[in-house]
């Protein structure tokens, strides 16, 4: 302790979290709620003053800071799990315990869709408690409405076109398989730069061949 100067401690301190923890978290939650209630519709986040360590985006970080705490085992993709700055930041602001196994995760934070393990490796819940499942916060470069695969189900009036970029070959196939597990399955909240889109397990996915 005595050998450290104040400035060296500050130099190591994690970057700040949500500027207004109460109201920022509320508004981020509302966007996440609307995202899952209206699958495939882009929800713009309010302007947040947040400078998370690379490679985390503002949207993904805001979701994790809003939803995670010591009660939510968190799985990080291999790039994040080996990034001490990222881990310190998340640990400091959420106290969420990191887990090695995707099956133990209440939340998963994935910085690049290419680093997403098999979706079936995450927790899908069980027949009596389908809520004991993983919610994946998945960072993507682009979220586009009215183009791409077709979504149907609760929260969607008729149907909704939606695409992400990048989108690896097997991703939509896996999400289609996930929806066949209903009411079990994982839910995804896609995080763009400053937008979020929800894809709950209840959404049926077609149009993959397009």
């Amino acid at each position: 302790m005595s050998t450290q100067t104040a400035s060296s401690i500050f130099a190591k301190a994690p970057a700040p979290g949500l500027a207004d923890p109460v109201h920022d978290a509320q508004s981020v939650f509302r966007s996440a709620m609307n995202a899952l209630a209206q699958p495939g519709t882009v929800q713009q986040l309010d302007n947040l003053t947040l400078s998370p360590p690379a490679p985390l985006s503002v949207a993904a970080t805001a979701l994790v800071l809003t939803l995670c705490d010591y009660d939510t085992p968190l799985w990080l993709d291999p790039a994040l799990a080996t990034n001490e700055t990222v881990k310190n930041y998340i640990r400091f602001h959420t106290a969420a315990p990191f887990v090695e196994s995707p099956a133990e995760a209440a939340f998963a934070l994935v910085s690049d869709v290419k680093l997403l393990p098999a979706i079936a490796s995450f927790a899908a819940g069980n027949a009596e408690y389908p809520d004991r499942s993983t919610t994946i916060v998945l960072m993507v470069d682009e979220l586009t409405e009215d183009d791409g695969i077709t979504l149907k189900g609760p929260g969607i009036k008729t149907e909704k076109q939606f695409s992400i970029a990048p989108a690896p070959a097997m991703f939509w196939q896996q999400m289609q398989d996930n929806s066949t597990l209903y009411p079990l399955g994982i839910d995804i909240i896609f995080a763009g730069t400053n937008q979020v889109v929800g894809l709950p397990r209840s959404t049926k996915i077609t149009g993959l061949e397009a």
Partner: protein
Amino acid sequence: MTERVETQGISDEHYNFAYLDEQTKRMIRRAILKGIAVPGYQVPFAAREMPMPYGWGTGGIQVTAAVIGKHDCLKMIDQGSDDTTNAVALRNFFVETTGVDTTTKTKDASIIQTRHRIPEETLTKDQVLVYQVPIPEPLRFLEPRETETRKMHALEEYGLMHVKLYEDIAKFGHIATAYAYPVMVQDRYVMDPSPTPKFDNPKMDQMEALQLFGAGREKRIYAIPPHTKVVSLDFEDHPFEVTKFDQPCAICGAEEVYLDEVILDDDGNRMFVCSDSDFCEERREAGHVGHLGTNPLEAEGND
């Protein structure tokens, strides 16, 4: 009438915004997200003690507290009215702890917390309807054990529920259940719509607004996202029938709305008026008149 709250600022000194601490809000928010992902499924949550008794709707309050933000406009209704003791007390609770705008006008509200009714006015996608639920488990009166009802939901074993409804038909010639009439959500979960009259059940189907349900004592949250299929349970030979009233509202003339019986005097004179007081008021302001003309209660200065 949107009233601006004068107690703003006081809240910050005494309570966290919306009373609940942030950890509790996060836990409730996570349960809400699961509920939305699995419509009609009852998500367990660790309900908190609230500064009012369970019968007052602590589940609905906790859901509203986890959702509400400083830019929201809140409407609080009980039995269709904004003016009952319960509605006033809960509205004041949020006024004191959040400082948000409140309204009695359905169309001006971004969040509507309700007990016993769904507003007559069609809700929109920018609104959230929060129900106070006393008994969330529709199978509870058939099977008291939670472990068993969970199994029944898991296996979609809803035969007993149909048996109960069919017993009604055998006894009364029709399904007698008039409140908390069970619904099937998105072809998967049987759900209790809370003690709303079955008259309101069809409004839940394909509603544009998000519907959230909170049960404080039983610690359950469930949800119906917008545009979700909600079907009242029935039988081919005894289809679900909405309560019909044989007269329109006595003071605004509205038909096909839910009516309350109001006693007018000691001689037993009575009238039937809209249970949704805001809906009735809007109609009268727009010039609609019922067969009793003006509201006899207001004419007598009983307002």
